[in-house]
């Protein structure tokens, strides 16, 4: 690559990064503005203030935000965990076994994934109220599984297909049962795939708004995206823009931390040295 060409790539890269990060920078900047400062017509606040953060963490919005944060964490982690475990078995079966209806399972998973959420949320609302799942953690975990499971099955079966079958056969000859071969050889080899899937599934659940706002009514199960929509300003003539921006920043932080933690586990080429060629 010539120097000129490389410079072009750098310029283009910087432009794309600025374009992508600008909304986030804006949110961060907004979260430091006082309510009167929000329409000041400039990017940076005239006076930096922690007012929005104190409002959502200790002030009058805290009673709405903090339980929502706890709910979001709990519900999303459980949904992600269940999706990963179930998808691991499903993907293993899909990658390894030849059984009738394999194609059907994969295409059904895809169909579920592309099915519009908004169209099932009303019947779900009625059903959940009928059977007592409305406004409970379980009432959100189940629909979240329908979001995360198809994606998890698809990504994980791609990872499982990459694992040489000989590894498992070697383990079996070495004296392992099918379960031992799966647990001691296949799962460690699939770990990068599992972590990648876990991150994707967590985002999907974390970002959900429609289920969150429709299937909950109190702090018992309301997740953060729904809670943000319910913020109110100090008076009815005031938008809660600053508080919303502050909360948005707060909920972004755990996601960033999660990615940074798991990124170290997503090392490509873990199967290097298993087999030749």
């Amino acid at each position: 690559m010539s120097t000129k060409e490389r410079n072009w790539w750098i310029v283009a890269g910087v432009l794309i990064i600025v374009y992508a990060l600008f909304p986030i920078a804006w949110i961060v900047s907004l979260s430091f503005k006082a309510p009167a400062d929000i329409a000041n017509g400039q990017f940076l606040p005239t006076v930096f203030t922690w007012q929005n953060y104190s409002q959502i963490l200790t002030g009058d919005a805290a009673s709405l935000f903090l339980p929502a944060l706890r709910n979001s964490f709990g519900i999303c982690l459980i949904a992600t965990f269940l999706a990963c475990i179930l998808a691991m078995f499903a993907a293993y079966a899909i990658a390894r076994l030849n059984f009738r209806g394999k194609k059907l399972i994969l295409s059904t998973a895809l169909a579920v994934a592309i099915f519009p959420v908004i169209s099932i949320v009303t019947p779900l609302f009625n059903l959940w109220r009928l059977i007592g799942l409305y406004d409970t953690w379980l009432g959100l975990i189940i629909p979240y599984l329908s979001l995360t499971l198809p994606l998890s099955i698809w990504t994980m079966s791609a990872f499982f297909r990459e694992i040489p079958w000989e590894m498992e056969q070697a383990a079996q000859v070495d004296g392992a049962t099918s379960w031992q071969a799966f647990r001691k050889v296949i799962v460690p080899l699939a770990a990068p795939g599992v972590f990648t899937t876990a991150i994707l599934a967590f985002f999907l659940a974390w970002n959900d708004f429609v289920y969150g706002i429709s299937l909950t009514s109190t702090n018992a199960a309301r997740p953060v995206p729904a809670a943000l929509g319910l913020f109110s300003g100090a008076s009815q003539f005031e938008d809660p823009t600053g508080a919303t921006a502050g909360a948005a920043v707060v909920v972004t932080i755990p996601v960033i931390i999660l990615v940074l933690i798991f990124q170290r586990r997503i090392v490509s080429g873990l199967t290097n040295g298993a087999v030749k060629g």
Partner: protein
Amino acid sequence: MASVEMKNIVKRYGDGFPAVTDVSMDVADGEFMILVGPSGCGKSTLLRMVVGLEDITSGDMIIGGRRMNDLAPRERNLSMVFQNYALYPHLSVFENIAFPLRLRKAPEEEVQRKVREAADVLELHEHLDRKPANLSGGQRQRVAMGRAIVREADAFLFDEPLSNLDAKLRGQMRTEIARLQRRLGITTIYVTHDQTEAMTLGDRVCVLRKGVIQQVASPRELYEQPVNLFVAGFIGSPPMNFLPARLRGGTLATPFGDVVMDAKRAAGIGDRDLVLVGIRPEFFEDASLVDEAKKAYGSTFTAQVDVTEWLGDAQFAYIPYDAPEEVAAQLKELSRELDSDQLRTQAIVSIDSSSRIREGHEAEFWLDARKIHVFDPATGENLTRDSEAGAELTRLAEEDRAEQISEARASGMTVEG
């Protein structure tokens, strides 16, 4: 320690393709058996049926006196080295070798001792803490073997273990495997498509073609008394030459002149008109270098030399000849089946490296008629096979083996168990 008996083993895949047809074979305790054949002959399938990774359609697989057909691989107590090594990349070399011991929850002290022992035998000591990704091909191969030998398995199974190594390393590892097997005295079944490995390693060699056993015999018997065209063409490098010939009262008229057959062998040919004469490259010689006393055992002829290859210790000359239409197709089919695409009918002859025969010139050759074989072109059957002499060769090889094993066991070099 155990013998492996296969009785009428058949493997038919779901689509009806017969991979292995009616294979019966005994591998004695401590014997080194080679399964050899061109690609797609069913040798790997057979090995995988022994270890239990492939279902057996019909027949009996008896290991150490027990019928194993329906047992899972882990219940057969066999160890296997895969073509691609199949090392566990997330475990260190130590843990890779220890894996079978860990699975049966062996005490830590025993694991330590056995892995160290295996590492001693395979010279892997300085690599025990490394991951497989950081090892060279030969080292990975040795780790795979280490994992096989810590087990005290009843038999070793090798599935083309050397085909991923470069030529030089392959030679070294071949010797290494032979030494290890002799030392441990464990029954071994070894699959390869390389006839050099088959000849050098095996006590006995089983030649397979399209899932059917052609011949099971010691390497010497295969070389000197092959049962048919296929075995004769597969064993030996460069391969045996097959010349079309017509029998005219005790002599064979070949493209390279007449060859006199002794009465006993001529009798085997019967009244067939056209036959194929199998002549190994080393049965030829530059006529000017042959003793007068020896010359009488064969015949001399002159031929145009196409190409010569001088290798220092040996020299090969290529002599084209014309084959009649009826056998040309047969020869072409045979060479295709042996994975060697011979474009023209030519004889490869091995001559002394001091010979001054030159390319593109006429030269006089001598042909030793004593060891040539005559094959039926239609069935491929060897018409001049001396089965008694062949059996004698295999018996001698078996005696050698028995002696080596009892020596190895007496000197206490085998792993205990």
